[in-house]
């Protein structure tokens, strides 16, 4: 684990927070604001009798990257999955509180619609094993009933370019998706998510199963994608959170402990517990 000083050093070279966001947040950061893209209030989530989230309230500004950090089992994935209503597909699960996307209640919308607007990338790359690279990227569109070959081709190429994979696979689009390396598979999954043109992308430890080079590719990608999308990323890796995110939320035992600009969070966290976690004293 790097020391705080090293992280601070890194922070100096860090991506610039968008000007609009910066001005609104530089000093008095508001953790829950109705102006944000996604607003969660008093979220409690359960697996049967186990409560995984306790009164979590936070909001996610448009076109920013929010990192969620915290020790294993603290509810990071659960929070992510409650945003696009993936939590409810687990038998026995339950959720209370309010979640809005552009001020509309997510839990009043059609779940299928929600998941099209809020895409998800998982921890382990999970391309459809029976499908070619092309079909993997086109899968979401085909589910939406898109049949026009030319349009499909266009979207597949655009998505693969966005995911920085096009140059590597353009000559082998008909090969199986699982013939790619782990890092390429994960970028394929990102392309697959982009093809549905979501507004928000949720990433659950997208690089934790990958080697350092693939990891840095994914991080660069996140930096590019933030111009067009709102991104929430769960990560185990402090440096990664510091590198890619504008805001960081620290979860512990199902509760949101601290949520702030990433810069502030990593240089002068308000709470002792946050500092201990960030500096690697526990977790």
């Amino acid at each position: 684990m790097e020391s705080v000083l090293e992280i601070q050093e890194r922070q100096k070279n860090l991506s610039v927070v968008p000007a609009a966001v910066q001005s609104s947040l530089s000093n008095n950061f508001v953790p829950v604001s109705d102006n944000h893209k996604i607003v969660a209030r008093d979220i409690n989530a359960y697996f049967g009798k186990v409560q995984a989230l306790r009164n979590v309230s936070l909001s996610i500004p448009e076109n920013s990257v929010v990192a969620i950090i915290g020790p294993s089992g603290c509810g990071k994935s659960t929070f992510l999955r409650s945003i696009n209503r993936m939590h409810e597909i687990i038998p026995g699960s339950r959720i209370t509180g309010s979640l809005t996307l552009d001020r509309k209640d997510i839990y009043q919308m059609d779940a299928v619609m929600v998941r099209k607007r809020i895409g998800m990338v998982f921890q382990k790359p999970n391309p459809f094993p029976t499908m070619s690279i092309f079909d993997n990227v086109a899968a979401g569109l085909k589910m939406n009933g898109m049949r026009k070959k030319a349009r499909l081709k266009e979207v597949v190429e655009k998505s693969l370019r966005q995911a920085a994979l096009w140059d590597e696979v353009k000559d082998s689009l008909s090969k199986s998706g699982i013939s790619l390396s782990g890092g390429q598979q994960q970028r394929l999954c990102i392309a697959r998510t982009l093809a549905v043109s979501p507004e928000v992308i949720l990433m659950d430890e997208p690089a934790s199963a990958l080697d350092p080079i693939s990891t840095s590719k994914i991080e660069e990608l996140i930096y590019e994608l933030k111009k067009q999308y709102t991104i929430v990323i769960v990560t185990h890796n402090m440096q990664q959170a510091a590198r890619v995110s504008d805001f960081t939320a620290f979860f512990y035992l199902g509760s949101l402990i601290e949520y702030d600009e990433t810069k502030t969070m990593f240089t002068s966290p308000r709470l002792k517990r946050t500092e201990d976690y960030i500096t690697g004293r526990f977790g």
Partner: protein
Amino acid sequence: MTNAKVFQISRFLKTIEVELVNIRESPAEIQNFFKKSDEKKRSRFLKKILGDKNLGDIVFERLTLLFAVLVFLLVLFMAWEMYSNSELSINKFGWKFLITTTWDPYAENFSALPMIFGTIVSSLLALIIAVPLGLSVAIFLAELAPAWLEKPLSFLTELLAAIPSVVYGLWGIFVLVPWLRDVVEPFLQNQFPNSPFFQGAPYGYDMLAGGVILSIMVLPIISSISRDVLKSVPDPLREAAYGLGATKWEVTKTVFTNARSGILGAIILGFGRAVGETMAVVMVIGSRPQITASILKPASTIAGALANEFSEASSDLYLSALIELALILFVITIIINIFARLLVWGTERRWK
């Protein structure tokens, strides 16, 4: 117990005792081998024959291997036995046994084709009915049913497999055959008056009855194996589909596509079961070796013919032809089963 028996047993025990004494007083080498002073040599020797395993493991391993080989040899022996016992028929008819169309014990003219036809067609009929049903059940159990419903329903479908086939046969005679004769077959003939498949007087004991009975019997195989195959598809795949905004139906389709070779295996295993099934079919199929397009006419299957005619086989040639029939059934079922198993294993292993 008679005196003679007691005497026999005591003599047997005596021989064992003598053997034991012989071992104890065996040649010097062996005695040395077990002496404490030679401990190093002994352990080196043991190591050489045992490797790093202990003696119990070795014995257990060898014993299980022996039984496995024995089972395999038994199968080979059965095949060879059938082959040698059907030589009379094989020499007389040659390939004609498989391609001519009459099975006539009085004229001593035998061909397996009508029975092969009956076996295949009745089994295919069974699949036509059981595949859609069985797969629906499997999909419901694996993908849709809540946990509290899945267990009892799975149990019930598997219970179908435990009912003895003669019970199915009786049910066929008392319920199925009258129903087919009075309701289904007249209906089919009304709907398709010109179809070659529904010609002849509705009699009830016919190919259709055989197919329907078989379909009920293979349903649990198809549904339970397909359910296992579907369940072996890992959740991340389902989540990938959900995450793209797939509906429940689209997710199920995705899972199904990924499990298709295993499901094909399940269907073929069901087919294998149908091909080998004897009792229930014999009781309702009408037992007449003929090749007709109509499924409303009696037919005969290989297994059925064997069960029916073995006691009547009056000549050596007749008997030999029946045994050749058995050999054909044996080969067909083995090939079907190997093929299906490979498919099922292939899919289940892919996710490990």
